């Protein structure tokens, strides 16, 4: 399954690149993120991970959400006001 991943949280994930990432059917958000980490050789610690939220085709999902027929995942920063 190929998924377009867009990072809107560079201060959390550094230079992880927007792009198409491939994971097996039935993968979770956590699995997808692990692929992104591996391909970018950037690994995010648990404390920083707490700042991350995910949208799958515009709908909020969690780390353990299983991905089915998803085209795009946005990795966004938790809201902090302003």
């Amino acid at each position, binding site marked *: 399954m190929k998924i377009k991943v867009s990072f809107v949280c560079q201060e959390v994930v550094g230079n992880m690149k927007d792009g198409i990432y491939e994971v097996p059917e039935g993968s979770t958000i956590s699995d997808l993120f692990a692929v992104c980490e591996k391909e970018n050789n950037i690994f995010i610690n648990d404390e920083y991970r*707490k700042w991350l*939220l995910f949208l799958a085709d*515009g709908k909020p999902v969690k780390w353990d959400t299983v991905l089915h027929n998803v085209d795009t995942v946005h990795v*966004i*920063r938790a*809201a*902090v*006001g*302003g």
Partner: protein
Amino acid sequence: MRKKSQERVVGAMYGYVGKLLFVDLTNRTFEVRDLDEKTARDYVGGLSLGAKILYDEMPAKTPVFAPESMIGFVSSPANGTGPFMGGRFTVVSKSPVTGGFNDASAGGNFGPLMKRAGYDAIFFKGISEKPVYVFIDDGKVEFRDATHLWGKTTMALERAIKEELGDPKVAIASIGPGGENLSNMAGIMHDEHRAAARGGSGAVMGSKKLKAVVVRGNHRVQPYDREAVLALNKEVAEWQKGPVAPVFELFTNHGTGGTYESGILNGDTSVKNWLGTAADLTEEQRKKPTSQEQDKLFKVRKYACHACPVGCGAIYSVKDGKWPIEETGRPEYETDGMFGSMLLNDDVYAINQCNFLCNEYGLDTISVGATIAWLMECYNNGVFTKEEIDGIDLTWGNADAIVAMTEKICKGEGIGKILQAGSVAAAKHFNKGFEALVHASGIEIPQHDPRWSPGLARTYQYDPTPGRHVKGGLSIHYGNQPPEVRYDYTNTGERDVNGVVYSEALYATGFCTMSDFGLPPEIHIKFLTAVTGFEYTPEEARNLGIRSYTIRHAFNLREGFRRKDFTISDRIIGIPPLKEGPTAGVTVDAKMIADNFFRELGWNLDDAVPTKESLERVGGLENVIKDLYPNG
């Protein structure tokens, strides 16, 4: 034993000057009073001390522009005494928008320098015969003619006053033409780019012909335990390198506008007058107005408020395009949202011009942007014709039209004269467009959506200063919780009250809004003790926050407000719900959240009046008890 900066002396004040200044502009007289220790301990500073003084000194039901109406500039113990992020001061008055209590706060340097000038708070009443500015110079009070300054925009005004006084280092809080015109959206500007913007306090200054308050001095306020302050600062510095580092980096590099795109995507940031979603904007349209992108085009340098290691401010210069600007402050997140996604506009030159105009004329960017959004929706639905709105083609996303309408509002020209009063007053004036209004008790709603973080519904509707995202409660951050948590409306009362307690104490002590991520939890109370020497048990610290909230609420009750009088527009709580996007289908049970909150406080659910027992439990509210329960 830890060494204190000085031994505590009975009757001495630490962290405070210990002096309050009351100025009568009608008679050009003033009175200096001592700040007593009990009031300082119970009400601390900022919005809390300001509300206490306003409650005690301003007669009930005073018309907002009457001579007896008061406006106060209130510092806090953290101002100028060393704590990181402790530079915030508060302006308090009655609001011409809501008719109730108003507070607006700002960073910069005014709060610390007001204390250097010799006063913890400065309150004004009366109406000057001619435009005036009041210069407080190391304790001395001087009334100076401002006839030649009346009509000046805020940056030119600050520079003219500094030149007139021959001192570039004075701190100035001032109004622009918006305040002079008594606009409901008029705020108070200082340090050229900082604003205590919301609720119309600038109009209260304008009604008094008070163009500016200028402070300088050499008074040094000592903290009770300087070494403890330094140790706590060290703790803050370590904290900011820890798990919050990514957010610290975001704000220090790009300011609040760095959250714009993620806010749109997650449903926090409004789109199309709260009718739209991220899908109404292309990826490019979402990215362009972020301050990460704007910084590449316009950033000259960054700057920080007093004692702030974050430094979320920046100076921009717009050198090309239709609206070049020599120098302006970087738009905040709220401003980007209001003049960006709210209007389906991605023209960053237009956003900067609107921000610049609002700051120069001394108007609140939130209310101006929201009022244009209201008119834009009306115009696009055929409620207003082009002729009725001065020939401006206010179609969604039309940058030229947005700038033109902002200019009309700022200058009070044509339809702008009506719109200066805000969207609700404008709808009443024209007797149409009510279906497109989005407000809380008459004031426009800022850029955080209760359909995303439902606790904001209670905060917007029932905070004594309604329609504010910076007020306490379940908070903006609650929206980061998974749906099964944030949309469970049962048992929210305790968390909601805890959020209020935290927020009230934070502002009373003088910390910035950003310190809700930039400071370790509860450290503000430790700072308060280090600065003032006042010790608070956990129960006393809790009562500090509840007392502050209650005195602000009591001001409104005394004006005649009851629960039914605090309103919120249906649209913003999902009536009807959005059909798409991350908050599709959400209708917030705002009533249940509010019931939970009032129940937790021990207040009556039907009218939101605190029971006598709940007031006695908090303590320090004797005047409120006397007013609400005159027969005992």
